[in-house]
């Protein structure tokens, strides 16, 4: 139809360019500025440590692997990396480049926290997972944020 109809070609071209312009102008509202062609937008870094919240106290999980009892009292092993495979989201305690920006990295880490905790539904000791994240945006002063997964009651015997 595009080959034979000038009107169809005109409509397609106008719609395409309008959509691309709209995506570029609103890219800031989407993670990774998707559709925005914002190349090399930041030179930010991120460093994060994982903790489990057990009976109100934070227990460090430096390697992303922990053991905990399930509701029947059986000890089980859980691993962040079994669920989160991307290196930029599973490397703890190391300053990493946030190639698509610190905000995108924080958003992805927040989503990963919920995903991992949901996957570790057998863990009856941990009431929530916590990531303490230090970001450094374009070599400015570092900022620290605390990201929390959803909460679950303590169920271990």
């Amino acid at each position: 139809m595009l080959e034979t109809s000038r009107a169809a070609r005109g409509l397609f071209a106008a719609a395409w360019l309008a959509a691309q312009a709209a995506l570029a102008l609103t890219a800031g509202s989407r993670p990774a500025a998707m559709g925005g062609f914002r190349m090399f937008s930041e030179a930010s870094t991120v460093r994060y440590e994982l903790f489990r919240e057990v009976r109100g106290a934070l227990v460090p999980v430096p390697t992303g692997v922990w053991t905990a009892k399930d509701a029947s009292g059986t000890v089980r092993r859980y691993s962040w990396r079994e669920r989160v495979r991307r290196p930029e989201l599973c490397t703890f305690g190391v300053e990493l480049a946030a190639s698509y920006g610190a905000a995108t990295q924080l958003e992805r880490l927040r989503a990963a926290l919920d995903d991992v905790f949901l996957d570790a539904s057998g863990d009856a000791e941990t009431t929530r997972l916590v990531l303490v994240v230090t970001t450094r945006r374009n070599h400015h002063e570092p900022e620290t944020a605390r990201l929390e997964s959803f909460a679950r009651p303590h169920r271990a015997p």
Partner: protein
Amino acid sequence: MRLDRALRGPLDRTVDGTFLGPVRVSLGLMLLLQGTVAARELTTQGYFGDAFHVSLLPDALVPSRSGYVALIALRCVLAALVVLGARAREALAASALVVFYTLSINTLDYHHNRYALACYALLLSLTPCDRWLAPAAPSPAGAARVGLAWGVSLCQAQVCLVYLASGGSKLLDPDWRSGAVLHERLAWYAPVAEARGVPHGLLAALSAPLAASALAKLAVITELSLPALLASRRTRAAALAWGVWFHLLIQLTSRVELFGALTLTMYGVFVTGDVRARALRYDPRSRAATALAAVVRATDWFARFDVRAWEADALDARRHVVVVRRDGSRATRLAALAMLARGLPVFFPLWAPLALTASLGRGSDVATEA
């Protein structure tokens, strides 16, 4: 009515699509590379749906493991069809849709260059890019090569839009304008750049705060001015030359996946579609001239030069090579080399320095009536 008349030209104009063939082959190779990378990740990291991922689409629209394997295989097959020129336009459009879909179901895999590749593939499918069937195949003759040019204009507009979006976002970011982002990135990637042969002293000089600030402003000005310079036929060649060096520098000093290669490939859509409008005449008794003719034949991917052995005429017998420009004027020596570099994509980065040197010298042009 006036608007209708104004739009009729860009929408109905036709173009000889020979010059789009190399663009198609290059995009096809990049699609194939992305397909094989996805296949490798599938074998090394497993099916993405079994692990943490972020999808823009509901779970019901995320394929199963076997569905995803089929999708990756389809990507590779479509990319191969694009390269080979078999149902190339359909394969380009389908490739684009598959890439859009795969980026939507796992946004952790999103990269601007991957999205841009899908956009360009879709737009190139609207052009007569299948006329140049395959690198080894003879070019079809005459009218068979001609098709509507509106897709070419859309491809050009997309390249300009990418520059405007990238340059505009940098202009609005104080950290970019001040050079802070570039300073930091140059420091990060200095080891990579050194490994690629960039001298340590040059990197140290570039990453100094003052130099990084100047470079950042130059990058923003470049990205914002290239669309206007590319739009005008008078400034287009200079803009392309500037852009080539801009991307080569980025490629050397950063990690950018396919971004540089993709943009340089898309520069091909700015080529004037005039097949064999220039000529190279050479002395077949000269070994150097014969070798040069062979190089031109091998690298003239846009089919710009009619290469033929010398024909007896009134030209000075000491000249071994003459380039006949589109306007019929003739050039020899350095000016001829500059003309060749301007027309041959592999040597295009050399065009500006050669043309500048030739313009400083004398006697490289010969009388048109000769």
